[in-house]
């Protein structure tokens, strides 16, 4: 097919931005009943990256996606695509395609006709439509199903048709609105791998919306964590997990212990009197986050360890979870890899000492 007619995929240019949202506000309703689904959100999504918007339902992630797709217009702010203002461009004029949560396949068309739809609407010549459709069906491994009606397909197959249909017109950005939520666990794992492969092969920028933190961590190049209409933190999965900036991010992704103390020279003083080494920049009350797997359990008389009491233990197979209480009564969870023989079996009531892994303590903004 002719390469000239295809603006995308531009082979990933890491420097350039695919999507840029500037101070985007989206309000529903008016006056008293006004709800801000998005409240001053700014985000930069780079070309060729797999970007995930992660957050609980109602956090505004889907609204942001719909603004990028053009189904909704923002109340305020600007959205740029490839540096061009597309804020008020109708969806059929944007080189952006969506994989809908419900797939939204056309029931009156066959699999191949569904995939060809976007190309036909773009006015591509018939030969090119046919060729691209066949290539897309091969890409999602559905060549054998081309003449079937979509209602005759399984959920996973419908998902692939939706993907092929959205990828066929070679969008600059592919938007995926919780596309895996309707699939069972096994299929979901398969599709996660599949999506990564497709993104790699096509080089198209993916913006993926999910509420599943594990999905976000395993698939994304970068994650934007959203809550209450605001972008809380943007970073790589590792950054998000190990360096959460606030309480919301720390608790939404993985399990976390929160400890409150006060700023002291050299770190944070806990109510129990223990001093935790941490880089604190401001005085007053400070919240610390420590992942359970970074809590080390030692003997009660271990020098420098904080005294604690075992409250309970839960066996998870690969690891053990211990509920511990510090001297001041505050609770803390520790996760320990359970050995082959379970040599560290602690009983409730036992006195132990705990210590945090070096560099594992994160000082939160709130």
């Amino acid at each position, binding site marked *: 097919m002719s390469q000239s007619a295809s603006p995308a995929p531009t082979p990933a240019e890491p420097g350039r931005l695919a999507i840029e949202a500037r101070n985007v506000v989206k309000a529903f309703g008016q006056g008293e009943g006004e709800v801000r689904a998005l409240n001053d959100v700014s985000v930069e999504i780079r070309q060729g990256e797999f970007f995930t918007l992660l957050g609980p339902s109602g956090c505004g992630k889907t609204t942001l996606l719909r603004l990028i797709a053009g189904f909704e217009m923002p109340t305020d702010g600007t959205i740029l695509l490839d540096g061009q203002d597309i804020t008020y461009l109708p969806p059929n004029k944007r080189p952006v395609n969506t994989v809908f949560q419900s797939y939204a396949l*056309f029931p009156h068309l066959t699999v191949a006709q569904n995939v060809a739809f976007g190309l036909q609407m773009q006015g591509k010549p018939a030969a090119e439509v046919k060729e691209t459709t066949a290539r897309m069906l091969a890409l999602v491994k559905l060549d054998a199903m081309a003449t079937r009606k979509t209602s005759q397909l399984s959920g996973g197959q419908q998902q692939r048709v939706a993907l092929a249909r959205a990828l066929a017109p070679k969008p600059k950005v592919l938007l995926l609105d919780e596309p895996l939520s309707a699939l069972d666990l096994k299929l979901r794992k398969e599709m996660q791998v599949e999506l990564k492969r497709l993104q790699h092969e096509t080089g198209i920028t993916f913006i993926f919306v999910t509420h599943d933190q594990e999905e976000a961590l395993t698939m994304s190049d970068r994650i934007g964590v959203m809550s209450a209409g605001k972008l809380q933190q943007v970073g790589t999965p590792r950054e998000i997990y190990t360096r959460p900036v606030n309480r919301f991010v720390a608790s939404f992704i993985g399990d976390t212990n929160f400890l409150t103390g006060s700023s002291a020279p050299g770190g944070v003083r806990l109510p129990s009197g223990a001093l935790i080494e941490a880089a604190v920049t401001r005085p007053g009350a400070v919240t610390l986050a420590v992942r359970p797997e970074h809590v080390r359990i030692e003997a009660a008389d271990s020098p420098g360890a904080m005294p604690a009491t075992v409250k309970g233990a839960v066996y998870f197979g690969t690891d053990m979870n211990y509920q511990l209480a510090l001297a001041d009564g505050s609770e803390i969870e520790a996760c320990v890899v359970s050995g082959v023989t379970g040599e560290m079996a602690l009983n409730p009531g036992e006195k132990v000492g705990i210590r945090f892994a070096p560099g594992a303590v994160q000082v939160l903004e709130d």
Partner: protein
Amino acid sequence: MSPAEKAQGARTIRNAWLLSAPALILLTVAAAGPLLIVLVYSFLLKGQYGNVEWGFSLDGWRGILFTKDIFDDTMVLADAHLTIFWRSVKLSILTTLITFVVGFPTAWFIATRPPKARALWLFLITIPFWTNLLIRTYAINEVLRKEGLVNAVLLKLGVIEVPLDMLYGPFAIFVGMTYVYLPLMVLPLFAAIDRFDMRLLEAGYDLYASRLQVLRRVILPIVKPGIVAGSILVFVPSLGAYVTPRVLGGGKQMMIGNFIELQFGQGRNWPLGSALSMALLVVVMVALLIYVRFANRENAHG
């Protein structure tokens, strides 16, 4: 299957027949019976003062297309009959088209209201059914006549100086037919649009379709069963309509329905009336078969 199960199955089938017997008997007696009588009558001789005389004759059927010249008894093509037939078909097609054009946005509007409002709108659509057809037709007469509502308003507003002569002609019949048959188009369309997944609209726009393309390539093909049902419900009765053309056409615009009625009344030619009725039935059935086949074939090929 065990013998007991077999007996159980047989009993279920017998009960099903027994329960549907009243409806089947009624349908046979009330629908097939009269049709059979009409069919038989169409092959009989016409009586002197209406009615029929027993004796086989094809005069009734011949009379559909040919008429006996009163001077020399030769058969000439009855072009008046064909004119009437063509006028009826034209009116029915036009009525079907305009009820679709008017009914589709109406049905779309109703189907996209919140559920509570939807029930109210549907209720409003069915209000005309509460009144007898004849009375409704006279109501249209009242609206359209020289001293009627439309003229009064237009005169008052100064849009026109002389009352418009709208009544007793093709226009009045057309307005009346559209009004009478509109609900029959709206209801099946509503049922189809109500089932339509509105998320497909976004999918269409997302894939570069304009509003018109979404309508043509997504909405219309999917709600096609509703369009087919509505068209049949409007086309068939309007082909046989005779109250509306009579009251609003002032007798100047004879339709097939009026023509058939004439044969059983002043015409005193029951065999011709019967033959015309059967011919109309056959034409409608053939037209429907072609229409449905056509609609389905389009569907299969997308």
